[in-house]
């Protein structure tokens, strides 16, 4: 069962990557699947529509639940990161207040391993942050704020 769901997600991911202009070869590399499988996906053949429908529902979950699901489906950090970043809708900035005590709880909890400790203060890598707020909620000193990047900031980026 999990295998079907992952292939459903990979199908959706392949479609997105295609829309971003990546070649079939690049898509195959990124998703760690055969090029022929990518070709099947994009041609609409050999597809399990039930799996895809299910995968679509998963992508509609809130950020936290979606990340928990893909963590348990893919297990490997690099694979989790690939999928998470493909389906990321918005960009986030993680701001850490100097009340941070360096306990490392956020580091251990972050599914994307986007947080590291530097000189006893947490630093959040915005590239990987998917805005699930797990770190913010768990922080014992309320030192973290995860903020959505505004649209104009996003436009400036691209």
């Amino acid at each position, binding site marked *: 069962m999990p295998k079907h769901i992952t292939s459903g997600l990979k199908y959706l991911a392949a479609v997105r990557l295609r829309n971003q202009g990546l070649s079939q070869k690049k898509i195959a590399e990124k998703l760690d699947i055969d090029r022929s499988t990518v070709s099947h996906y994009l041609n609409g053949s050999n597809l399990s529509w039930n799996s895809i429908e299910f995968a679509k529902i998963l992508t509609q979950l809130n950020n936290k639940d979606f990340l928990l699901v893909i963590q348990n489906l893919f297990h490997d950090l690099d694979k989790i990161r690939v999928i998470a970043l493909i389906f990321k809708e918005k960009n986030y900035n993680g701001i850490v207040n*100097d*009340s*941070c*005590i*360096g*306990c*490392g*709880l956020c*580091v*251990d*909890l972050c599914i994307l391993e986007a947080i590291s400790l530097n*000189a*006893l*203060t947490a630093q959040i890598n915005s590239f990987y942050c998917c805005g699930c707020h797990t770190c913010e909620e768990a922080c*014992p*000193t309320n*030192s973290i704020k995860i903020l959505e990047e505004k649209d104009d900031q996003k436009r400036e980026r691209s």
Partner: protein
Amino acid sequence: MIKNVKEVKGKDFNIKRSAAEGRQLSFNDHICIGCGICENTCPVGAIEIASVGNVSRNYFNTEFSGHKKIAQNMVSKPNYVKVTIDEDKCVLCGMCSGLCPADALDLTIGGESIKNMESYPSYEKSMTIDDDECVLCEKCQIACPRDALTVKRDLPKRSDLVTGEIEVDKDTCINCGICEELCPAEAIDVTKEPGSEDIIIDKDKCVYCLVCKKACPVDAIKAVCRSCSYGEYDFDPEKSVTTGNVIIDEKECINCGWCEGVCPTNAATVTKAFEGKFEIDEDKCGECGACIDTCPCNALYFPKSKGSGDMDSSIKIKEEFCIHCGACEKVCPNDALTVKRTKINNTPTNSKAWQDAIKALKN
């Protein structure tokens, strides 16, 4: 799911977080001095300290007026731990470990203590003995309130410190044993039994004091001391030195400074984590002695009476041995003691939260 697991071993315990970094906080009850700094510092309120006055006055070993307690049926009372940490609240940040002046709490990350990590601040306190100056007199070992010092010394041989000649004429000797009884060095062995009379002088023990020669009723002993006149030629100065070293138990040492205070050659040097002021409100002190029993540094004492009916109305302190930990202040039932910390000696840190925690120690 990230969860903390607590493992209890007697009065000690450790708390581990089930995650990749491998954080572990361990507590050593024996080392703990009951100052309560951990309880005040913990940012999540996970630490609770017991009433240390009761804990330090161990129920079972109390002697009253020099005699063991009269009661025959000693009811078994529980032994209390000084510090309790709620593992569900603890986030293993290590602040308690970093700020503990006794190093009773230790946070390790991946097996290495934060005391060895530059990013974590630690107290600049030390206890060192200059082996060149130390004469192994053992005063520090006796004075240390925590038995943290052990002196290992090898004394020179007596025969390398004295020189002379001694001989008994066994034909003249009447085996009366007077020399044996008088010999201050127990160097003479006389056998009196008829048939097996003998006298043996152990030259490794003899100090050539000549007492035996002077006392011998038949002048059977010929002896001469050469130490004063020929000492220069006979002695090897290297062999007359006591050798050894002092072993410091760094875990037990509380940096009180007693060793430094009693050392006759200034070989012991102690630096402390805190500088501060200690005040007693003499009117409030009820002289119960709880502070004296709690103080890890033997810095507090009952003053001696100056005469009949003349008594000080409060306990006293030798502040040079105080480390300003505040355990006495916590335990005093009449709030008679005030411990102020005016300066903290610690290595720097970039974390503002940790800097604030250290600043908060000053009161």
